[in-house]
């Protein structure tokens, strides 16, 4: 164990992946390759117990996510339940199944914030990458309805090789839609994204142009829209604190009720994950083996252990260390101090130069 239970602060937020079902088929989907079928999803009462336990564990916010959370007909009931136990509700959605009427019901249930992902700024490219015709137009309509309903809107701009040149247009679109926040979210290469890395990774030139464009806009955007922008890992010199540090801020509950430190944690061999049927969330958070495994700093190898940034980046991302260095307990190879840092550059340059079609995400049965 990396630290004792007494050291553990309460989680800030619980990510409730209500379902893996989704009408879109984005090739960079953050869901695992092995999707939970609808038949294994927690039912309404099961999720209500999770919500109760999230509040008991000290969480302040809940993120209703998926898949596409709006495929669940009980979403309104779950938001209402979260409100009743004092949780702040975020909805992370593709928006294609939403309309003004349902938004009004969700708002009445206490929903505060809607995050809508956009695949591009114009319909053709957006619908092609999302694999859903008419999706983009629908998203824009719903985004406007979110703002009209008085809810907070975040636009999640997912950037990759095929749209990264339009980052300025994404920002303009978010402003035009009245979003209070934009996530300039470069695709993360785990799960489906990892299988499609050679089809999606931008080139260094594209990346530099995007970075300059965003940084040039930031001063004029201050006070108008909150910008969450992180340099994409593959071109960074230091890793980011994935999930704000393992087991420090977030816990993730999968559609079938497995409790994870991050949504990709199941890719790590040797970790045992408890489910909501085993113990309450507070107990799993406090001393569950998977949460304790990489929490804090005691587990860290060199060069992390003697690094003055170890409590800033928390060693980076465990899933990325596994994917790139073959060892989840290694320093995130994105760090230029890692022995495996050269591998990142090699893989990156190889994949950025590749010309292969992407493979769409499969369906959750």
């Amino acid at each position, binding site marked *: 164990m990396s630290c004792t239970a007494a050291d553990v602060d309460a989680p800030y937020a619980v990510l409730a992946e209500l379902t893996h079902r989704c009408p879109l088929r984005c090739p960079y989907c953050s869901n695992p390759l092995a999707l939970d079928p609808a038949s294994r999803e927690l039912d309404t009462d099961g999720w209500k117990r999770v919500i109760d336990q999230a509040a008991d564990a*000290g969480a302040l916010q809940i993120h209703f996510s998926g898949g596409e959370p709006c495929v669940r007909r009980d979403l309104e009931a779950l938001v209402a339940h979260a409100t009743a136990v004092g949780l702040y509700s975020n909805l992370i959605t593709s928006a294609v199944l939403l309309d003004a009427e349902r938004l009004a019901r969700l708002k009445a249930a206490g929903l505060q914030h809607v995050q809508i992902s956009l695949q591009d700024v114009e319909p053709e490219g957006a619908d092609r990458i999302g694999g859903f015709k008419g999706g983009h137009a629908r998203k824009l309509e719903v985004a406007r309805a979110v703002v009209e309903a008085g809810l*907070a809107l975040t636009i999640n701009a997912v950037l990759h090789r095929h749209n990264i040149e339009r980052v300025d247009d994404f920002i303009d679109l978010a402003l035009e839609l009245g979003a209070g926040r934009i996530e300039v979210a470069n695709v993360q290469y785990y799960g489906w994204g990892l299988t499609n890395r050679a089809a999606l990774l931008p080139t260094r030139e594209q990346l530099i142009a995007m970075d300059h464009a965003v940084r040039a806009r930031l001063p004029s955007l201050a*006070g108008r829209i909150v910008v969450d922008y992180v340099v994409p890992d593959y071109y960074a010199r230091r890793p980011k604190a994935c999930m704000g540090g393992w087991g420090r801020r977030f816990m993730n509950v999968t559609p079938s009720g497995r409790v994870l430190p991050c949504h990709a944690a199941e890719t790590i061999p040797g970790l045992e994950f408890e489910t909501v049927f085993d113990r309450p969330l507070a107990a799993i958070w406090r001393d569950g083996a998977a949460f304790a495994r990489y929490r804090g700093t005691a587990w860290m190898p060199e060069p992390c252990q003697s690094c003055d940034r170890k409590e800033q980046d928390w060693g980076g991302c465990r899933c990325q260390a596994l994917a790139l260095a073959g060892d989840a307990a290694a320093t995130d190879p994105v760090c230029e101090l890692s022995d495996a840092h050269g591998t990142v550059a090699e893989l990156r340059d190889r994949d950025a130069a590749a010309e292969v079609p992407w493979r769409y995400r499969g369906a959750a049965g």
Partner: protein
Amino acid sequence: MTVAEDSRVRLAPGVMLRHDRNRGAWMLMAPERVLTLDDTALAVLRACTGPDAPTIGGAIDALAAEYDAPRGEIATDVLELLADLRLKGYLAP
């Protein structure tokens, strides 16, 4: 970003003031963010936001009276704090 005394501010959409028993602290809850407030920030937000909130100048008058402090000092602190919260998206004009 400056905030003028004759203007008003309100919490931005999706932002709410909330007391957390667990942590024994007041917080601003916002989209996928949480800001822990100290006593000063809490007093300023209570004075400046809400359905019947006065102008910022009016709120400064009230705070100066309540805390029996020089108005100029209070004004500097309040305007600085509100400008920072505006910049970070917690407040809307």
